[in-house]
């Protein structure tokens, strides 16, 4: 018993030490530092496409990074995306034409996430079946290539590193790196004490961040499985997370109705995106190419646009008739896609 008391005391002392270390470098905040920056222009985006095809709530979407040199005429064009709906389908869309390119029927319709591999060859989905299923889009008939089955809770997010590795986050409070050739977990990331809801890969793919229902965001080393840093501040579930394009910061979105930016090198929150009038949870977020604009989807059917440096709301995407559940900006930054429980996806720019 004595040892446990000692451990508890040490834990408390370390927490105090960490807070003091953060305070010691906390000489300003992002909004103050950006006070001299010209405000972002008022952002008024128009709906360019409404993608109709799903028959139920859309839960996730992900842009392809494949520039499709072989299949389409234009070079450097990022146009394909995958969406997942609880109608039990993944749909692959050509965002430029608005046409459906492929449909993948799912064994389990309780899907919560989908992902496009960087190569464009594979897509993945998962949800309440606790599994991540990987499909090959390039075989004459779309085939299931692997069913990754080891999580003991729902699959909330999946992201491919390549055609041979995928990262998942789960309601079982863990994240995992899988080998797609063996179908087994290579590394399990253990430290969250609540359901993991989202993850984002760093641009260099050596680290990733996860957000969970314990209201914490964590930075992990992909290769050694170590949790490197923990970010506090949110007061409810973190549903969305993304690396800033500079790779030195992350943005999170939470049920506490705020988004936050945490700087990795200062190891703390540097700005919070919130408004007293906003009392809906954040479901999803995506960043514009420079990182200046944050597109955050909310339960109140809107997607609010924030100036990431100054913390001001600079626009809103209104048009969905239900919760915005997912957002994404393609690699060329040419548009933003929103997906909703109203069963539609919209492309805006």
């Amino acid at each position, binding site marked *: 018993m004595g040892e446990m008391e000692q*451990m508890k005391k040490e834990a408390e002392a370390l927490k105090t030490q*960490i807070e003091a270390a953060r305070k010691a470098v906390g000489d300003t905040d992002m909004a103050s530092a950006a006070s001299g920056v010209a405000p972002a222009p008022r952002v008024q985006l128009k709906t360019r496409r409404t993608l109709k095809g799903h028959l139920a709530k859309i839960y996730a979407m992900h842009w392809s990074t494949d520039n499709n040199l072989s299949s389409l005429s234009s070079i450097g064009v990022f146009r394909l995306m995958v969406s997942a709906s609880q109608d039990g389908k993944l749909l692959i869309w050509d965002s430029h034409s608005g046409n459906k390119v492929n449909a993948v029927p799912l064994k389990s319709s309780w899907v919560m996430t989908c992902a496009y591999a960087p190569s464009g060859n594979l897509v993945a989905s998962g949800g309440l079946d606790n599994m991540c299923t990987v499909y090959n889009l390039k075989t004459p008939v779309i085939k299931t290539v692997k069913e990754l089955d080891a999580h003991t809770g729902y699959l909330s997010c999946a992201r491919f590193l390549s055609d041979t590795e995928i990262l998942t986050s789960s309601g079982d409070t863990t994240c995992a790196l899988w080998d797609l050739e063996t179908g087994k977990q290579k590394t399990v990331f253990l430290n969250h004490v609540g359901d993991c809801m989202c993850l984002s890969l760093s641009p260099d793919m050596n680290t990733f961040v996860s957000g969970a229902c314990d209201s914490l965001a964590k930075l992990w080393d992909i290769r050694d499985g170590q949790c490197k840093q923990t970010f506090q501040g949110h007061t409810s579930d973190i549903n969305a997370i993304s690396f800033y394009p500079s790779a030195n910061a992350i943005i999170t979105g939470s049920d506490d109705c705020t988004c936050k930016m945490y700087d990795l090198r200062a190891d703390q929150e540097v700005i919070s995106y919130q408004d007293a009038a906003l009392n809906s949870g954040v479901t999803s977020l995506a960043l514009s190419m*420079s990182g*200046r*604009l944050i597109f955050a989807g909310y339960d109140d059917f809107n997607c609010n646009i924030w100036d990431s440096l100054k913390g001001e709301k600079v626009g809103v995407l209104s048009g969905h008739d239900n919760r915005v559940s997912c957002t994404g900006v393609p690699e060329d930054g*040419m548009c933003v896609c929103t997906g909703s429980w109203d069963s539609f996806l919209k492309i805006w720019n």
Partner: protein
Amino acid sequence: MSNNSAGGLVSLQKNVKQLRFEAGIRRIKVSQAAADLKTFCLQNAHKDPLLMGVPSSDNPFRPPKSCALF
């Protein structure tokens, strides 16, 4: 969560080990971090289509041109 004291102790030890690791990292000043972020954003602003606006001639999502057939 384990109720027995052995499981509780192991869990606490892991927690302390993790906290020791996180306490030991190097931190830079927020003013430095914020300055770098600002610089990155501003340097890349001109390449950001959603920030700059997309001219309709370059917009792959622009309304399709109507085709008049006489």
